[in-house]
C-alpha cells in the first residue's frame, strides 16, 4: 500500500470523524439555536419559579423567542430573579407579563410572555413588572381542599338557612 494512498485514507478518516462530530453538534444538539441571532437580557422576579431550569425556553404565543439565562435568589426580597435572553428580532412592550407555564401535562417548564399594550418596548437590562409564579402542586391541593370544604359548608349552611 503506497504512502500516498495511506495518507489519503487517513485524511478521509479524520474528515469522516469531523463530519460525524459536526452532524452530532448541529443536527442532534442545540448548537444551531445557540449560535442564533444576538440577544438582549431582561429580568423577571417570581415568588416561586417552580421547576424552571436555566436554558429553558422563553415563548410567546407558543413560539420560542429566547432562553432562560440564569436563575438566582434575591437576598433582600427572597424572590427568584430570572434572567431571560430574548432574541434581538423580537421586541416586547414594557407591560408584558411573564408567566411560568408547563408544556403539556408533565412536561418541562418554560417562561411564557404575554405582551401588553404599552407603546414603549422593553430595553436590555429592564425588569418585567408583571409576573405569575409557577403552579406548585401542594398549594393547588391545599386550594382544592379549602374550596371543597367551603362549598360543603355553604351547602349545609344553605340547607339549614331557610329553617331559621
Amino acid at each position, binding site marked *: 500500500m503506497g*504512502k500516498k494512498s*495511506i*495518507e489519503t*485514507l*487517513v485524511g478521509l*478518516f*479524520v474528515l*469522516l*470523524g*469531523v463530519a*460525524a*462530530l459536526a*452532524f*452530532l*453538534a448541529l*443536527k*442532534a*444538539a*442545540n*448548537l*444551531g*439555536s*445557540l449560535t442564533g441571532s444576538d440577544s438582549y437580557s431582561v429580568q423577571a422576579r417570581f415568588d416561586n419559579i417552580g421547576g424552571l*431550569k436555566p*436554558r429553558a*425556553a422563553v415563548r410567546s404565543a407558543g413560539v420560542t423567542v429566547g432562553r432562560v439565562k440564569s436563575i438566582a435568589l434575591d437576598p433582600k426580597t427572597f424572590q427568584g430573579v430570572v434572567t431571560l435572553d430574548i432574541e434581538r428580532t423580537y421586541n416586547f412592550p414594557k407591560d408584558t407579563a411573564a408567566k411560568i407555564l408547563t408544556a403539556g401535562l408533565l412536561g418541562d417548564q418554560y417562561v411564557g410572555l404575554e405582551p401588553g399594550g404599552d407603546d414603549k418596548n422593553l430595553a436590555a437590562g429592564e425588569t418585567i413588572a408583571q409576573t405569575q409564579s409557577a403552579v406548585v402542586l401542594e398549594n393547588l391541593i391545599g386550594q382544592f381542599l379549602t374550596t371543597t370544604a367551603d362549598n360543603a359548608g355553604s351547602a349545609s349552611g344553605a340547607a339549614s338557612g331557610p329553617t331559621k
Partner: protein
Amino acid sequence: MNYAQRLGTSTLDQLRGWGHAALFFWDMLLAVPASLRRFGLVVAQIYAIGNRSLVIILASGLAVGFVLALQMYYALVTYGAAESLGLIVNLSLVRELGPVVTGLLFAGRAGTSLTAEIGLMKAGEQIAAMELMAIDPKARVLAPRLIGGVVSMPILAALFSAIGILGAWVVAVKMIGVDAGNFWSIMQTQVDVWRDIGNGVIKSIVFGVICTVVALYQGYETEATPEGVAYATTRTVVISSLWILGMDFILTALMFSTP
C-alpha cells in the same frame, strides 16, 4: 503469618507494576514531540489503528442504534412518550454507549493487535536492534502508536454515535412511524453540545489513552514466547475493559451529576 506475607508481597508487586507502567507512560509522553516530527509514522499508525477499525465500529454503531430505538420505543410508548425516542437514543449514545462500547471494541480490535505487534517485535529483537543502533524505540515505534490511538478513538466514538442515531432514525421514523419532526426537534432542543457531546468526546479521549497505553505496555513487557504473547493480549483486553468501565463511572459522576 504466611498468608499475610503473601498478601503483602502481591500487593507490593501490583504497586510496583503500576509504578512501572506509569513510568513507561511518562517515557512515551516525553517521546511524543520527537515522533510528531516524523509525521509519516503517525499517519501510518492512524491508518493501522483507526481506518482498520472502521468496519466493526460502524457496523456495531448501526446495530446498537437499531436495537436502542426498538427497545426504547417499547418502553416509552406505554407512557405515551414515544416522541422523546430520538432524545433518549441520542443521550444514551452520545453520553455513554458511544465512548464506552467503542472503547471496548477498540481494546479488542486495536489493542490486541498493538500488543501482539509490539510483543513480536520485542521477541524478534527488533527493539533491541533499534536501541543498539542508537535509535530510541519509544520515539520511533511506541509514541507514534500512542498518538495514533488517541487520535483515532474520539473519531471512532463520534462515528459510532452518529451512525447509531441514524440507525435509530431508520427504525423509529421509517419503520415504526414516530413523527420525524419531533424525533429531531426534541433532540435538538434538549441535547447540549458542550455538556453532552463535549463530555462524550472527553470520555472517548480518556478511553483512547487508557486502551493504547495498556496495549503498548503489555506488548513491551511480554515474554518472548507464543504463550507470553497470548497471555499479554488477554491482559490487554481485560485490563483496558476494566479501566474503561471504572473510569466511565467516575467520569459520569463528575460530568453529569447536576441536572
